[in-house]
């Protein structure tokens, strides 16, 4: 309870104390609902479920709602200011009492259902009916909660809703089967509702809801936010800046003004699902294009033409469809729409890659180097193409696949210097001295790497350590050259030479050096 409170409070620093008080109440209700969910209680069936209109004034709901609130809930936008002014503690108390009762009823139904499941294997019709009943009840409870708490808090709108994906998922899973059209007018109330549970406490509740909705196989997990946080003038929630290192390309260079595009936010599960066909309107993913086309029909008549059914509606939808950008569901991420410097992602593919790269475990390990790990398999494949061929080497031991990256690195760090790969050194030396001897090779190899970093630099030279110091100390250096007398006459062999008066006196180097 306290944990949930603090997390909520941090998320709502901008809110008034009054508002947070209301939420506390609402939260406690939620707690009650969850902890008592096993109790059995029979509750009469409410009005026709599909009859609940998309707005908050269902005929059936009037049964549960106190009259003084009903009208205001019917038009929350207009009523908010006045409600804020004439905030009535008594009305709220009565509301909450009512909610308590209601929740108890629902709990009992659920309890009875679980009991009956154990007893009778059959009776699926009855179970299904009860499930519908529970769903409807819960929906009305939530609506009630929102109308009680949410309408009091005009400042808490979209941002908080979207700050918690799980919460929103709850809202969706609840809303869609009930036929709630998730249109713009409805948004504020739904948002506020979703603020109720603490971030960490939603998962089991969520599960419950999923169970309740098993009949629905295509859940609308995605919410459409016609105006993202910045657009409506609602204050962006202050939030810690988790600057995740971005490696994806979507929306990087774009400077779309906030509000000029629609932000979609896929859920975690959706992102990680192996879908390949995505709805361009809502972002929902499908395994088969045919399913997508069927889904598109739900977006309107224009998608029902044979042409639209034949292939994805890329072209036909391009002129009238609003610019769509995507938000990462990870709160605190720069790609999340709550972020102060929100940078939207351009495509669903970008979302998928971004989410996997930034917020998922890197489960693919390169089989060649066994060090590099990736969360996107394409990245692994790209890496494997170049793995082992990082030939641009810095004196600090870091390797780069591209020369400009190496030079950028060297330019950045004091004392670092480009290092020549071992092979290159050997090759170049061999070409310079065709009659290279073994100690020479060893020496050049060691020298190729031994760039002393500046002494102040703490980075020790990795490659220096490989040098066999005893062998190449200055003392032993000179005898090394004793073997190189041949260098002075490359290209021909003196023993074959009939002329013995060669003027070169270089044969004496070895001896001289050894002597000295």
């Amino acid at each position, binding site marked *: 309870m306290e944990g949930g409170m603090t997390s909520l409070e941090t998320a709502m620093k901008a809110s008034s104390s009054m508002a947070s008080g209301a939420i506390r109440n609402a939260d406690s209700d939620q707690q009650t609902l969850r902890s008592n969910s096993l109790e059995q209680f029979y509750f009469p069936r409410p009005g026709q479920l599909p009859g609940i209109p998309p707005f908050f004034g269902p005929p059936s709901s009037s049964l549960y709602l106190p009259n003084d609130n009903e009208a205001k809930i019917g038009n929350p936008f207009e009523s908010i200011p006045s409600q804020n002014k004439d905030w009535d503690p008594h009305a709220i108390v009565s509301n909450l009492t009512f909610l308590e009762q209601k929740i108890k009823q629902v709990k009992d139904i659920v309890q009875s259902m679980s009991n009956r499941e154990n007893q009778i294997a059959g009776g699926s019709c009855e179970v299904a009916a009860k499930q519908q009943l529970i769903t409807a009840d819960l929906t009305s409870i939530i609506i009630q909660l929102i109308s009680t708490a949410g309408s009091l808090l005009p400042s808490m709108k979209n941002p908080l809703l979207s700050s918690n994906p799980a919460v929103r998922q709850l809202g969706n899973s609840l809303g869609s089967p009930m036929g709630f059209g998730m249109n713009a007018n409805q948004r504020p109330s739904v948002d506020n509702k979703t603020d109720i549970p603490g971030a960490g406490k939603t998962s089991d509740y969520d599960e419950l809801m999923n169970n309740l909705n098993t009949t629905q196989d295509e859940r609308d997990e995605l919410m459409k936010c016609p105006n993202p946080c910045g657009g409506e003038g609602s204050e962006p929630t202050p939030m810690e800046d988790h600057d995740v290192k971005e490696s994806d390309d979507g929306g990087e260079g774009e400077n779309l003004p906030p509000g000029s595009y629609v932000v979609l936010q896929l859920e975690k599960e959706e992102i990680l699902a192996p879908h390949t066909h995505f709805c361009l309107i809502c972002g929902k993913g499908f395994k088969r294009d045919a399913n997508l086309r069927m889904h598109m029909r739900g977006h309107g008549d224009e998608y029902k033409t044979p042409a639209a059914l034949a292939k994805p509606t890329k072209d036909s939808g391009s002129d009238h469809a609003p610019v769509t950008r995507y938000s990462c569901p990870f709160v605190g991420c720069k790609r999340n729409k709550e972020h102060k410097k929100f940078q939207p992602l351009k495509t669903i593919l970008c979302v998928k890659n971004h989410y996997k790269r930034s917020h998922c475990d890197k489960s693919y390990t390169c089989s060649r180097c066994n060090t590099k790990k990736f969360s996107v398999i394409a990245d692994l494949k790209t890496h494997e193409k170049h793995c082992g061929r990082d030939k641009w080497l810095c004196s600090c031991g870091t390797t780069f696949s591209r020369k400009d990256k190496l030079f950028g690195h060297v330019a950045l760090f004091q004392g670092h210097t480009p290092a*020549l790969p071992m092979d290159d*050194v050997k090759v170049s030396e061999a070409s*310079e001295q065709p009659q290279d001897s073994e100690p020479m090779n060893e020496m*050049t190899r060691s020298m*190729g790497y031994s760039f002393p970093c500046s002494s102040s630099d703490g980075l020790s030279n990795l490659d220096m350590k490989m040098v066999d110091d005893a062998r190449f100390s200055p003392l032993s*250096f000179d005898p090394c050259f004793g073997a190189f007398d041949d260098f*002075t006459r490359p290209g021909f062999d003196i023993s074959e030479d009939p002329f013995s008066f060669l003027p070169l006196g*270089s044969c004496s*180097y070895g001896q001289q050096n050894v002597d000295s």
Partner: protein
Amino acid sequence: MTATAPARREPKRRRPSPAAAPLDSLADELLFLILDRAAAADPRALKAFAAASRACRAAESRHRRALRPLRADLLPAALARYPRAPRLDLTLCARVPDAALAAVAAAPGAAAASLRDLDLSRSAGFGAPGLAAVARACAGLQDLDLSNGVELGDAAAAEVARMRGLTRLSLARCKAVTDMGIGCVAVGCADLRDLSLRWCLGVTDLGIRLLALKCRKLATLDLSYTMITKESLPVIMKLPNLQVLTLVGCIGIDDDALCSLEKECSKSLQVLDMSHCQNVTDVGVSSIVKSMPNLLELDLSYCCPQITPPLARSFKNITKLRTLKLEGCKFVADGLKAIGTSCVSIRELSLSKCSGVTDTELSFAVSRLKNLLKLDITCCRNITDLSLAAITSSCASLISLRMEACSRVSSGALQLIGKHCSQLEELDLTDSDLDDEGLKGLAGCSKLSSLKIGICLRISDEGLIHIGKSCPKLRDIDLYRCGGIRDDGIIQIALGCPMLESINLSYCTEITDRSLMSLSKCGKLTTLEMRGCPRVSSTGLSEIAMGCRLLSKLDIKKCFEINDVAMLYLSQFSHSLRQINLSYCSVTDIGLLSLSSICGLQNMTIVHLSGITPNGLIAALMVCGGLRKVKLHEAFKSMMPPHMIKAVEARGCGLQWIDKPFKVEVEPCDVWKQQSQDVLVR
């Protein structure tokens, strides 16, 4: 300054005489003063001085600033004798193996540590190991010249990078060095002031950018013929201390690159050379000159296709400009006039080979540029007496006037030069209408040091005698194909010009041994060219050999009378000889072999000598260890053993095979000149 020629000893060397004793007691400072004076008079005097006494020898070894050994294998001995010489010049050693550099590093005493300056610019055969040895031992090295190290790669550059104290480095023509090598140098040698990357074709913007980032002290930078583009030009231009920037032949520099610089140019830049940047036009140039207020010298030769009035007016922004080189440019629409009005501060103007230079424009320009000191109008063929009259009347303080091949200027106008420009030190009237009257007029130019009057067929001894009498400071005279010159004129030159260092008498067919005998009195003569002088013989050349001990360059092609005798004299006395052309002479194997005992000999041309056999030739080549380049007749190629040729080449000597027809007769000068002008008309 040849050091330690091994077998050379004073012929009459005696034990130190009592007379030498006072010299021993002198303080080092005084001894050094004496040494400096003696060396200035005659470099060989140092050797005699060292031989005088033990103390003198020690003093001389202490005082020696530079070592220039003839062979790399002499290095240990030279360093032992001169342990404090800060400069080691290996330009005479064609092949310096790694072992030799290791010997430098391992030299006893402080020789390696006191080395400041190492010149390997004309040497091959060394690589990274040798440089590593140097880097380890010579901690004080400041100046390293690795020019022409075409074999040097990144590994070598990485070794250079370990020489932390380097302030000057030349990697010119190190074509195998890439960005990696330059990157190492940039990080390692942060104190670099002067760097040349000319012809480093492996270097790209990456390396140059890093260089500009790490070497902030760079003042002189040569990036000629590199692949620099607009990617790295801005960072180079922003180097805070950059004074001299050379960008010759950078095809990656175009108007786009220059225009993108905006105002980011270094305020310290004084010299900018963009000659042969073929992709630069007047647009780019006029955009950068605005941001270089302190520029003193600008070279746009063969760079801008057109010099337009707007470009010329943009030079107004460079208020301090002193030197403007516009060789090979084309002036359009009064461009030259605009130069005259805009560049009032300039002292030096080069319009060599420019097209579009007319009398009216040039006259107008020089009338505004009254402070001009140097003017080059070589090959401005359209100018006439009018221009010369304007030049001589406006620019009275000229010290250099070069107007080769201005063939429309009459002899009468050329007299004006001597009359008005008495400050002249350098004058080039090659291929002009100059006559004796003109030469007589030049008698007023007593400061004349260089006079080029080749292919002036109308001059004779009479005029030349005036020069000889009145120009005592003459160092260089070119009388190429002056067919009218005879011995008397040369004798007067030899008498009147004791400073003479270089004389060209080629195809002055009338001169004889008398001229050479008189020239042998010019002790400073280093260059003597007299090809096609059939009347000189060994007698005259022998005199030259004995008299002109500093002779280093000799051309006696088609001097048919010269034979082995002269070679014997040369081998005996001319130990400074570096270059000789013997084609068509009567020299045989004997002469050639004796000649090859001159250890410093580097270049030989031995074509069409009837007395030379393949055996003699190969023997001479093998003996002469310092040879760098030898021109031989193609016919010898098959007659010499291939492994011998290989051996010679492996030592660092390039053999060039010439396949020209044998042609003895020399056409008269007037015929030759007519032929050359016929080419021009066509």
